[in-house]
């Protein structure tokens, strides 16, 4: 089962508290997840902590599922960081700012596990 979602990213307190500790597991825990509301998680057949694959026209990334009832249905949130940026839009529309909010995404449950920060960055060197 796949769902379509509108993907945004943003700050969280945990992400901010790890701004200068990005090699730590705490940073991975603070950023490598995707928040959806419970109805969307149910449609996916996913529980909190399951792996989700998020795909956009710019790439794909595996992150953990998290519930947030503050999100309206169809709105997905990944904290700012390398996992979100693996799938957000590099297009700046001529004003310098990439598209960090409002990227159409497809989300599905996967058996794969999220890559840790260093492994994720190594992929850029190998590309």
């Amino acid at each position, binding site marked *: 089962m796949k769902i379509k979602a509108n993907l*945004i990213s943003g700050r969280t307190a945990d992400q901010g508290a790890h701004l200068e500790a990005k090699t730590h597991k705490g940073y991975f825990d603070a950023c490598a997840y995707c928040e959806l509301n419970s109805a969307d998680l149910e449609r996916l057949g996913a529980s909190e902590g399951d792996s989700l694959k998020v795909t956009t026209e710019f790439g794909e990334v595996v992150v953990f599922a998290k519930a947030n009832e503050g999100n309206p249905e169809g709105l997905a949130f990944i904290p700012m960081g390398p996992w979100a940026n693996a799938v957000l839009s590099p*297009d700046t529309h001529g*004003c310098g700012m990439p598209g960090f909010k409002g990227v159409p995404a497809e989300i599905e449950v996967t058996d794969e596990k999220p890559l840790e920060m260093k492994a994720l960055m190594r992929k850029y060197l190998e590309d």
Partner: protein
Amino acid sequence: MPVIKDAVCSLCGSLCDDITVTVEDNKITKIENACILGQSKFVGMFKHDRIETPMIRKDGELVPVPYEEAIEAAAKILVNSRRTLSYGWCSTSCEAVSGAIQLAEETGSVIDSTANVCHGPTALAAQEKGAPSATLGEIKNRADVIIFWGCNPVHAHPRHMVRYSSFSKGLFTEKGRKGRKMIVVDVRKTDTAKLADSYIEIEQGSDLLLVTALRSIVNGHEDVIPETIAGVPKAEVLELAETLKNAKFVCIFFGMGVTQSRSKYKNGDAMSSLISDLNQHTKAVMIGMRGHYNVTGFGQVATWETGFPMAIDFSKGYPYYNPGETGANDLLVRGEPDAAIIAAADPGAHFPQKAIRHLAKIPVIQIDPYANPTTEIADVVIPSAIVGIEAEGTAYRMDAISLRMKKLIESKFKTDEEIVKDLTAKVRELKRGA
């Protein structure tokens, strides 16, 4: 046991200047008044992954080298590059920014700040329409209506509401939160929205529609508003416009929800026009919720030194500025830079994949206290002292008020300012040799 009062927290743009720090044996052992972000900053420096020595990538691995060797390698990269991107410089002092601009001029580089992925569109909007603003002190003392639009201070600026906005008590706002109306406009019910008197949930990417509708109403044209606009019922929009017009002093704090969503800088542009319209009825101001503690300072220093706040291209021999062309992400996505120097910022974590892919292909010099995703793709790494803890310097708060950051403890590391000076001297020496 020295206790240092009124230290300035060098994490977010709130730049809280009331931190009490206890130092024992050159270590910070106690912090008072800081939020979770500040705590992590002050205490974390003894726990986080410090870059202990300069390094150069050899056969794919970063290998420790003496400081002079790293400076020479970095200077060679800069001298041999035809199109260098200098990026970041926002979690450091204005003095370091000034040095970085000089180095960019010397090397004909493009220099851009973290505003490129933050409030860059706000700077564009301010140039197009102006940014009617006030100090945070004015807001604290006078604002009776506070809007948080597309921002979430509970998470991103945790003490902002207590020190400067919704919960603070001031000269004419002695009732604090009870005497103020707090409104949140956002696409999801954030922890900030949960504290608001009213929460207006808009459809993601439709900020411009809502701002324009508010302008129409404030200007006496509510008849043109459809029954629902930006996902918000007309009655709610009318009520919001009424609240704004009848306020004594309005401040709209806005964040990435406004700058990163569809319409980008046009959202800030429209917001500025709304503020101007409101000033026909009452006093109204706007302030961008700046992220890095001195991103505002970069804009200030760059503007007084070059005429532009960011994305400044020195390749023509004079400062040239066009953010959609000379912004860090535009350059990288086009695959233009053949080298990059990155300081006090982390594009590895915060740039989209296409930009990082290009960074991974070119020589990258990193100057930073901590290892982070950018380190993984860097070729020369130079560790630096932490400004506001191990080095003093000037920073600008989000309302463009400058504050002096204190040095709290001794450090073995050179400051960003010193590193930039050494690099500039070495670049000049190599150029003379050539």
